[in-house]
């Protein structure tokens, strides 16, 4: 190279022509690039909002998304505990996963650069591996853009003015088209099954309905619920509380879909023809069941399918227990229960009506003659109001009131009825009162939003003209000279929150108010009556706060006695818990007796 190499000297000078132009080099400090607002880069998943339904993984046509367990995420009711992990070697950034995410936790970001030492690293868990991407979220599926259908198919119901004239069923039920449309909203994640006490196969039967296979759906339902029509109308539907769609919209109407399917089979023969359950050979074991409520009937049905000789003893003239006597007929018509019990009788369950254990037959006799006994006695006695004058003529418990109405007796309600309580039972009493022609006020000690009753029931009551008086604590029943109810006095309460618990109602002094009334219906809780049990058995049976203690198999401290329903610690005082108790007791009894052989 000589010093006279002209080319080498001149070429760098040529670069001067670039002076004054905007540089194409990367700036330091890094300059944010201008990326479009809806850019679809790497995903970001808000791990707290994600419920692990797996809809993203199911929709992905490239099979790029896996659901994996993360150490920091613990599943629970309404959360599978799994989170999506994306294989970016496969992802084509179409964002369909974002469009179908029911919670909106999965989004895409403006991030598209991954720096790593490992050239084979393609698997990233959005949200866990890129928490900082939260700030760069660009592609979201809001309620309008989401492909989920968040609005429930509305249920047709009787006009409130019509309703109070009779005990006709209020809800008219889905027709076929509505049921298919509603069933199609389900994303089949199965989160609901965990919340259901008996773990019904919910996604399976809803899928069957969506595909137009109502018979198959009924068969799937009967696999572990023998009173589906009861549940289809009055279930407390904890499944819907954890529905994936419910996070941002209205839960899939699981209860009403079940109701739709059960109504397609309108008599016992048809149910038998459709369900065609497997019936085992008789095994000559005898099981005695006390009480033909949901728990007793369920245990009876599933035990007889397993070849047991089952006899149910029921003190009333009709089956169903609280479901029959405690729920007004406008919510659950008589035929609904009767049809299902007819079917059970066809499958071999024997029921002795008008047979009160402890009076018409002794418990000892059943105990001695059976290989196992199931107690499904429920909570028959109501708590008193516990205030001055609650012994007056015209103060009644809601259980007695509804029981009388449901057995066809008449109750003189007069012009004004006061119902006390905030649960479904007291709402039932109020709405029955309206149907009997009374004006109804309902007193509840807390706020309306604290009421344990279903919101549909509360709304229904208000539509029908029930006057709700929240934050009102009854203090005294006013009697006339003959000892009959004349009125009720209550104080207004203010809600005071202390510590972490729910706010407590505290009476406001001087706020006493008196309402004139003819009848007071109290629905503030019930207790069990164990007088049917002989002393030595009652002594041995372990109880806690008036409820029988049982293990997972619903077995009591006396190995031969199983128990379920409202009278058991396990039970949550609703029909589906009782059905679950009956079902698991069946498995428990089966396990115990089959082990003997």
């Amino acid at each position, binding site marked *: 190279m000589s010093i006279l190499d002209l080319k080498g000297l001149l070429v760098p000078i040529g670069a001067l022509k670039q002076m004054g132009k905007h540089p194409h080099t990367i700036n330091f400090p890094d300059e944010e690039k201008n990326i479009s607002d809806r850019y679809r880069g790497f995903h970001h998943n808000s791990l707290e909002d994600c419920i692990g339904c797996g809809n993203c993984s199911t929709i992905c046509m490239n099979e790029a998304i896996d659901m*994996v*367990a993360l150490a920091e995420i613990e599943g629970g009711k309404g959360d599978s505990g799994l989170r999506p992990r994306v294989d970016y070697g496969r992802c084509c950034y179409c964002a369909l996963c974002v469009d179908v995410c029911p919670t909106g936790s999965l989004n895409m970001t403006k991030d598209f650069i991954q720096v790593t030492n490992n050239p084979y690293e393609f698997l990233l868990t959005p949200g866990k591996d890129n928490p900082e991407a939260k700030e760069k979220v660009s592609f979201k599926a809001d309620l309008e853009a989401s492909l989920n259908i968040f609005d429930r198919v509305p249920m047709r119901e009787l006009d409130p003015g019509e309703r109070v004239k009779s005990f006709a069923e209020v809800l008219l039920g889905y027709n076929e088209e509505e049921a298919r449309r509603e069933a199609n909203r389900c994303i089949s*994640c199965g989160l609901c099954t965990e919340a259901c006490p008996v773990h019904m196969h919910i996604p399976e039967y809803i899928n069957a309905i969506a595909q137009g296979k109502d018979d198959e759906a009924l068969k799937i339902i009967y696999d572990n619920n023998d009173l589906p029509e009861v549940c289809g109308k009055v279930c407390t539907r904890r499944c819907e509380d954890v529905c994936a769609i419910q996070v941002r919209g209205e839960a899939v109407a699981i209860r009403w879909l079940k109701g739709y399917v059960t109504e397609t089979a309108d008599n016992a023969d048809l149910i038998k023809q459709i369900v065609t359950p497997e019936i085992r050979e008789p095994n000559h074991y005898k099981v005695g069941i006390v009480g033909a409520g949901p728990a007793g009937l369920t245990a009876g049905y599933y035990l007889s399918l397993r070849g047991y000789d089952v006899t149910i003893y029921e003190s009333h003239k009709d089956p169903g227990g609280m479901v029959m006597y405690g729920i007004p007929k406008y919510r659950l018509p008589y035929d609904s229960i009767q049809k299902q019990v007819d079917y059970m009788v066809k499958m071999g369950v024997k029921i002795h009506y008008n047979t009160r254990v402890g009076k018409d037959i002794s418990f000892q006799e059943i105990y001695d003659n059976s290989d196992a006994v199931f107690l499904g006695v429920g909570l028959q006695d109501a708590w008193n109001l516990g205030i001055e004058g609650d012994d007056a003529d015209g103060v009644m418990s809601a259980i007695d009131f509804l029981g009388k109405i449901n057995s066809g007796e008449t109750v003189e309600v007069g012009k004004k009825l006061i119902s006390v309580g905030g649960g479904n039972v007291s709402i039932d009493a109020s709405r029955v009162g309206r149907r009997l022609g009374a004006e109804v006020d309902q007193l509840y000690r807390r706020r309306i939003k604290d009421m344990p009753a279903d919101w549909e029931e509360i709304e229904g009551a208000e539509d029908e003209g029930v006057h709700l008086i929240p934050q009102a604590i009854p203090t005294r029943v006013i009697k006339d000279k003959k000892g009959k109810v004349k009125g009720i006095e209550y104080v207004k309460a203010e809600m005071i929150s202390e510590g972490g618990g729910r706010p407590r109602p505290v009476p406001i002094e001087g706020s006493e108010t008196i309402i004139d009334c003819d009848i007071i219906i109290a629905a503030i809780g019930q207790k069990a009556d164990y007088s049917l049990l002989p002393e030595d058995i009652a002594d041995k049976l372990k109880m806690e706060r008036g409820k029988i203690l049982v293990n997972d198999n619903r077995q009591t401290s006396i190995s031969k006695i199983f128990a379920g329903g409202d009278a058991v610690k396990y039970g949550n005082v609703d029909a589906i818990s009782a059905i679950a108790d009956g079902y698991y007791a069946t498995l428990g009894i089966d396990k115990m007796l089959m082990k003997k052989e």
Partner: protein
Amino acid sequence: MSNFKKETKILKSLKDVFEIKGSVKSDKRISIKADKKNVSSILLFLKNQKGFIHLNHISCVDWIEQNEFELVYIVWNPKTRLTVMVHTRIKRDEPVMENIDTIWDQANTYEREFREMFGIEFPGLIGAKEFILEDWDNIPPMRKDFNSQQYAIDTFSTRPGRENAQNVREAIQKRSGEEIPDFAKKYSRD
């Protein structure tokens, strides 16, 4: 609110000449439905007589339930700024459509894409058979009966490290102790 004078006039002139159904969709938008055999004449008429000199777009929809493909030709008049959408349906099991790249050259690209992605034949169409796909030996991928997911499973290998993936339904079932009977399993989500 305009009374769609210009739009109605175009629609009427089309109806006078051809057997079509159609309506004014909205301001400056006219939609017509025509038989397959009339499409090229309608497009020529619109281009030469009515000033719709610009071919905006051609799109295709697979109506699998009705066993038909729908082709939509969108043309535009730069002077009046009107758009006409010409819809036509062809049979899915006999997917042949007249070639219109003699009217607009750029139609050639659209048609080659439809040939590859939907399997629609355009007799006389000049251009390599392979357009975007290479060595494709499956049914045309934009047809609705093409199972993309199955294709992805069959074609691509699973990356190591993905073995710990779980099925949501099974995970919940295991946790709660639910037993799904066999006759119900076919309705579970995979």
